[in-house]
């Protein structure tokens, strides 16, 4: 066979965000199996080699491993997922050193603007697909509206790329909330991995907060939610990004997780199929659960779609030895993946494609197992709702 | 029989040699004085005996056993206690605690808190004071009492008159007979030759790390001492 294609993949396999990387091995194996001895690129067969690196949930580390992949392994294509701390530095190195790069699982504003992107210009080598702040705002707002409350919202936004993005005075939650008559109680950006949230909690209690919303890393939400109980603080609606996206985290909270709501970006009931393996979303979920015994999570679909896009682009590449040619192929992507249609020409800004986002809520069954229902589909009529939104408790 | 015998003791500070083969012997019940000018090596010799200053391959017998090379705390437990130069009380301990520390080695005997308070009545009402809140003389008494609390067979006193007024010195030395009476032998290091001659059965005079003179107070003349002390004749200069 001719020259092997090297794909470098960076994700937070350890550290506070490790849970996002849980599906990595399963997905990579699925693709390795499917690829077999290679893929056809412009008439000749090329073996494909995946080189996986751990960002340890740290942007410094992510930047270092990206450089290793570029300079030592000399990969043809970079891929990275899960939060700006990993996707941004990898994309930065790729852009500067002229290596094509595909990323997802980071809201597009923190990714694009966090990298000083210019909507008029865009980037030459780096492409990203995910939903955006406008979507999360819409979903959360709908969830708040679905339950009768005093419309007082306590915000838990950390001082990290997501937190700063969500809290952004123009692009983030605050303006839209004001426009829709929600009162915001914001105690400011807290540091991640904080020992103590009593300040936020008492502020919320004082302002009579009935809705808590934010984007917290799993360990912090556990601390927060535990101390909320200690302080006797019981809001009606709680939807926090990241932390409550994962059944494991919910299971750890036990009954206290019942009724927590969250945004849903991929689900076993999603109506989309894999372009590469032909699996339905349900198939993908089942295969994963059969393989690992762990419940399927949202990142599963996105890891899968990431490599769908990568391989599709490679197969359309004219000259696999030329980064420019690969980048061009990626830019021309129009592909129906297991997370929806990816089309970088249709994005809000260059190099960005958007995927659908809906609302969901957790129920803890009698055996203490968490189940995620789709409660709001907000116009994405192709995605069916499976339950009604309800207040906590 | 001999309580302590040391043969050709040498000691170094880095590459500087402070002691050049000291030979020393004393019998139980004796009180021996070591005199000599600054830097003669008196303290170094005592430190060598107590094990504070490691001394190489020479032979120190105490109470019929070889103690050379043993760690200081082990030597102490065999009944060899020292009143260090400059008193060295523990400032953060009260007088009484300073005394109690002395008994940590756990040797029983005549010397108890009460026995020490009887020896130095001043200390009894100062028992709760911090060691440093005392006068120099009282501090010296505590230092001596602290050493006695371990009921030593042999007590080494390094310049207990250091920086004290003649009156106070007399008071302190007044205690010596009672210490001897309790069956403790003593080595007294002194620059105060008068005192040394007064209390000692025998004297050793050190000069530049060597023994320059030995004898009994009765036999040695002051001229000899001056000679051995400074390597010069004092009347000569004074006149």
């Amino acid at each position, binding site marked *: 066979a001719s020259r092997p294609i090297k794909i470098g993949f960076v994700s937070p396999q350890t550290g506070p965000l490790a849970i996002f990387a849980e599906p990595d091995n399963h997905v990579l194996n699925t693709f390795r199996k499917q690829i077999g001895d290679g893929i056809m690129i412009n008439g000749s067969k090329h073996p494909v080699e995946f080189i996986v690196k751990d960002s340890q949930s740290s*942007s*410094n580390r992510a*930047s270092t491993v990206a450089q290793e992949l570029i*300079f030592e392994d000399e990969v043809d294509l970079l891929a990275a997922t899960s939060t700006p701390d990993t996707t941004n530095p990898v994309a*930065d190195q790729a*852009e500067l050193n002229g290596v094509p790069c595909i990323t997802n699982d980071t809201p597009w504003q923190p990714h694009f603007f966090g990298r000083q992107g210019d909507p008029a210009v865009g980037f030459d080598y780096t492409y990203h697909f995910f939903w955006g702040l406008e979507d999360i705002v819409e979903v959360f707002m709908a969830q708040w509206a679905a339950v009768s409350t005093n419309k007082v919202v306590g915000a838990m936004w950390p001082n*990290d790329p997501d937190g*700063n993005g969500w809290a952004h005075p123009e692009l983030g939650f605050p303006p839209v909330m004001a426009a829709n008559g929600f009162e915001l109680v914001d105690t400011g950006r807290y540091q991640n991995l904080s020992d103590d949230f009593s300040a936020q909690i008492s502020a919320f209690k004082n302002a009579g907060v009935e809705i808590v919303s934010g984007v917290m890393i799993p360990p912090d939400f556990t601390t927060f939610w535990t101390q909320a109980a200690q302080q006797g603080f019981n809001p009606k609606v709680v939807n926090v990004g990241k932390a409550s996206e994962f059944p494991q985290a919910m299971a750890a909270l036990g009954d206290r997780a019942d009724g927590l709501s969250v945004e849903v970006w991929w689900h076993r009931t999603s109506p989309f199929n894999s372009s590469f393996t032909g699996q339905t979303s349900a198939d993908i979920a089942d295969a994963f659960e059969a393989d690992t015994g762990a419940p399927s999570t949202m990142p599963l679909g996105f890891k899968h779609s990431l490599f769908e896009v990568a391989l599709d682009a490679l197969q359309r590449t004219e000259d696999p030895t030329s980064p420019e040619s690969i980048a061009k192929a990626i830019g021309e992507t129009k592909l129906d993946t297991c997370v929806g249609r990816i089309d970088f020409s249709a994005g809000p800004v260059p190099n960005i494609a958007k995927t659908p986002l809906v609302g969901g809520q957790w129920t803890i069954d009698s055996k203490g197992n968490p189940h995620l229902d789709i409660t709001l589909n907000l116009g994405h009529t192709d995605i069916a709702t499976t339950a009604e939104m309800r207040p906590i408790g | 029989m001999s309580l302590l015998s040391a043969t050709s003791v040498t000691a170094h500070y880095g590459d500087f040699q402070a002691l050049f083969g000291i030979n020393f012997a004393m019998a139980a019940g004796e009180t021996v004085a070591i005199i000599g000018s600054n830097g003669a090596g008196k303290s170094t010799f005592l430190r060598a005996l107590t094990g504070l200053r490691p001394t190489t391959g020479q032979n120190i017998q105490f109470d019929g056993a070889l103690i050379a090379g043993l760690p200081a705390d082990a030597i102490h437990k065999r009944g060899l206690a020292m009143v260090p130069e400059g008193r060295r009380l523990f400032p953060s301990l009260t007088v009484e605690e300073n005394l109690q520390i002395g008994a940590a080695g756990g040797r029983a005997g005549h010397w108890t808190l009460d026995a020490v308070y009887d020896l130095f009545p001043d200390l009894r009402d100062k028992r709760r004071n911090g060691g440093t809140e005392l006068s120099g003389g009282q501090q010296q008494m505590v230092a001596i009492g602290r050493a006695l609390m371990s009921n030593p067979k042999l007590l080494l006193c390094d310049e207990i008159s250091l920086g004290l007024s003649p009156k106070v010195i007399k008071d302190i030395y007044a205690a010596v007979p009672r210490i001897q009476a309790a069956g403790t032998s003593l080595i007294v290091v002194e620059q105060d030759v008068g005192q040394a001659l007064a209390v000692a059965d025998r004297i050793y005079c050190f000069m530049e790390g060597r023994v320059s003179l030995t004898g009994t107070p009765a036999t040695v003349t002051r001229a000899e001492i001056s000679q051995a002390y400074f390597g010069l004749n004092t009347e000569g200069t004074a006149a």
Partner: protein
Amino acid sequence: MANRILQALLALTILALALAPLWAGRADLRLLMEVLAYLALAQMWNLLAGYTGLISVGQQAWVGLGGYLFFALTILGGVPVFAAFPLAALLTAVLAVPTGWVAFRLQGAYFAIGTWVIAEVYRLVAAQVGALGGGSGISLPVAVAKSIAETRMGREYVMYYIAFALAVIAVAGVWLILRSRWGLALTAIRDSEVAAESVGVNTMRSKFLIYVITAGLTGLTGAFLFFQKLRITPDAAFSVNDWTAFVIFIVVIGGIGTIEGPIIGTILFFALREVAADWGTWYLMGLGALAIAVMLIDKRGLWGAIHARWGLSILPVSRNLPD
């Protein structure tokens, strides 16, 4: 004689490094950049701890400040890259003055941890500066990076020579200082502070000056390091392990209080890393163990021992009386 040979060897190495772009591949160049940057950091810490006895565990404060100031100057201030480097270094040194004023209230081991606390303060403050991305950190606009050279290889070369210059400045700088009248004073302070005072050396001022100077050069190195990383975040910029722990190990293993020590240490550090890189955490544990071993066996470190044994010195700073 042996000294002559070693000096020749050093000269050759420097020459080889000066010509590295001719013989080294992209990956090697990257490695060399890191080596040279660490050499600079090591020389600075050695000058500080080895000569003035100020054992700082907070050097990451200067690396981070240098990096952040560089980003601020280029992104917010629009200052051209090559002006931004010296400026960042200068401003870091300026900030070291009030910092030192506080830190010098602590002595010995307390000074060490105190400097660490101060570095933490800088980290947390950096996380509050929204204009520089707060806790998210910020990327250097690709345009800025490209401004030093259009082609990718060109950029590699320019960056390499910046690193090369850094290391040369650090080593030569320390050497010149130590050969100067003032270096005499520093060595005296190292050996006995009270005696140095008694012969007219103003120990306090010397220490403070060294503290500020090393801060400045460490800041310069920081500016380079993050220029090369393209992205700066508070955690990365003020990392105690990356910018202080490793540096201390390098110096101590190589030999503290000598110029050669940090050089030997740096070479050893990266040589070890190249062979043991894939052992990951085990490599770091080994490093820690090695540092401990040095302290237990011979705290003068590798070069210190060699020097004591054979009297070798590649960069002599001693002044002999001709007779």
